[in-house]
């Protein structure tokens, strides 16, 4: 007689992916916000393909926007298979710190599960924070899951605050990705949606270190963008 498999209900491991998007007034200049909307929308099929490559990771996507305060664009963790993008609109200042504090609240246990894979946080900004960014970052890094998250930042245009974006990453081996035109932004978003997602989806253990979770792939240091810089 074939016995039942021991133990209770099985489950794949959740992987929480957060888009953290700057919707300040400057993002409305030169089509930056439209480029961001298009880039994320184009990346969705690629995210689905990357997620399908590791069926044991359940990719759950959310998005938060910040300008005057911070607000959830997509508040519920949404399976990447059902994830649809709602266009962002740009207007207001740059309350980046508040966005990080709100993300931090979602990384507490609960609602996070202690068997989850490292979350992926992607911060996209074209300027400087207008609120207390350091307090928001501290709140995020005070959370065990915030500290262990894979944190990537994309600097949109030349006016982006690279110091802030580097602090967010918290790993001297990783720099903010630069996007000075729509094509570059699409490329950076695609890389984050595929290579980073695949790396974070791996179940492999790694040695605990003082730095954040390592990425098991090379960051694109030089990307050939054919378009001219316009931002």
């Amino acid at each position, binding site marked *: 007689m074939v016995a039942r*498999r021991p133990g209770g209900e099985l*489950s*794949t491991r959740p992987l929480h992916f957060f888009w953290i998007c700057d919707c300040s007034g400057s993002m409305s200049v030169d089509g930056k916000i439209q480029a961001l909307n298009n880039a994320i929308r184009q990346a969705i099929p690629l995210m689905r393909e990357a997620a399908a490559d590791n069926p044991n990771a359940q990719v759950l996507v959310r998005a938060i926007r910040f300008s005057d305060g911070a607000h959830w664009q997509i508040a519920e963790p949404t399976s990447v298979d059902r994830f649809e993008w709602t266009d962002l609109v740009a207007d207001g200042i740059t309350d980046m710190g508040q966005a990080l504090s709100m993300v931090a609240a979602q990384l507490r246990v609960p609602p996070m*599960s202690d068997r989850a894979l490292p979350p992926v946080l992607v911060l996209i900004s074209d300027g400087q924070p207008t609120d207390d960014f350091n307090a928001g970052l501290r709140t995020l890094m005070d959370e065990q899951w915030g500290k262990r998250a894979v944190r990537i930042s994309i600097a949109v245009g030349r006016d982006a605050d690279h110091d802030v974006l580097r602090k967010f990453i918290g790993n001297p081996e990783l720099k903010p990705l630069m996007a000075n035109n729509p094509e570059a932004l699409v490329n950076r978003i695609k890389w984050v949606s595929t290579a980073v997602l695949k790396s974070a989806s791996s*179940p492999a253990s790694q040695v605990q270190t003082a730095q954040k979770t390592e990425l098991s792939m090379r960051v694109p240091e030089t990307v050939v963008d054919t378009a001219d810089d316009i931002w």
Partner: protein
Amino acid sequence: MAVSDLIVLAISDGHGSPKNFRSAIGSQYAVEVACRMVRDYFLVERADLARLTEIAERALPQQIVAQWTRRVRNHWQANPVDRDSSWEKLQPSTRTEILNAPEIAYGATLLMAIVTDRFIVYLQLGDGDILCVYPDQPQQPQRPLPIDPRLIANETTSLCMPEAWKEFRVQLQPHTSALPSLILVATDGYANSYSSEAEFLKIGTDYLDMLQDSVEGLMAQLPNFLQETSQQGSGDDITLGLIQRLETDSLSELGTPMLEQQKRTGNVQEFAESQKRATLRSTIAFLGLMVLSIVTLPLIGWLLFRTAALEAQHQEQAKRIEGLQEQLAKLTEVKDQPTTYKEAPVKGTGKPQ
């Protein structure tokens, strides 16, 4: 008082990060070194429980790490890294880190359950789980070791860390406390496959029931169980070891260890690496059980024989002494005086203390 025999279950899980590209070797060395150290300490050392606890918590982890580090560094010297394709894929800063501390390339965890006729020792470095199922509460397996809250998001402590011996969690439980009916030792891929801690802990009573039904039946199905669990759960490799307490005579209370490896990365002392086909894995697991039985039973037999031989020798000596006493009494023509002699403790009585 000495330990007369023991059973050691050791499991080691190599890390999956690119910089731990020789962790399969590291995990193999981990179980080999650990088992040897356990035998060196607990079969030789004649000490009270306080001293044995100190050994388990300090000396044993120190020596495991030291001997493991020595072995992996010897391997590093003998096997230049420029012949390893994994080395080319690493970033320069990572290569520098490994050149300064080659043991990083071999990083692995270590989980052990050591059952003797006097106590049980649980020992763990890194992620994974050790569970004990007690006869009065089979539905609620216990963790003999505290959970390390740092070990989330695939992060683990490791043999390759500086002062790794300080990261060990250790518990020595004398047989004066309740004995578990079943001890389970598993790599982290197992627990990560269940939707919650509660769902994972159900394996305790399930395995106990199956073992009480048929050990052979469980061993035959175990590869499929673990494969199904991994496929529908974490996707990670799973290694599982079991020690069951048998309800017969006192020597048999030490139980029989069983081990199964769902895939190749875990390393288990005394078992061959699992093969790809499920039927071959079952065969190897069964043969392994037989090998352990073949090794363990003669050891027990030898101990019993040794005990009997020593007792016979003791009786003969006692008679000889008695004879000499009579002669002495006759020669000196003095009143009998009480003669006292110290009876040396006999090794390997095989009797539980």
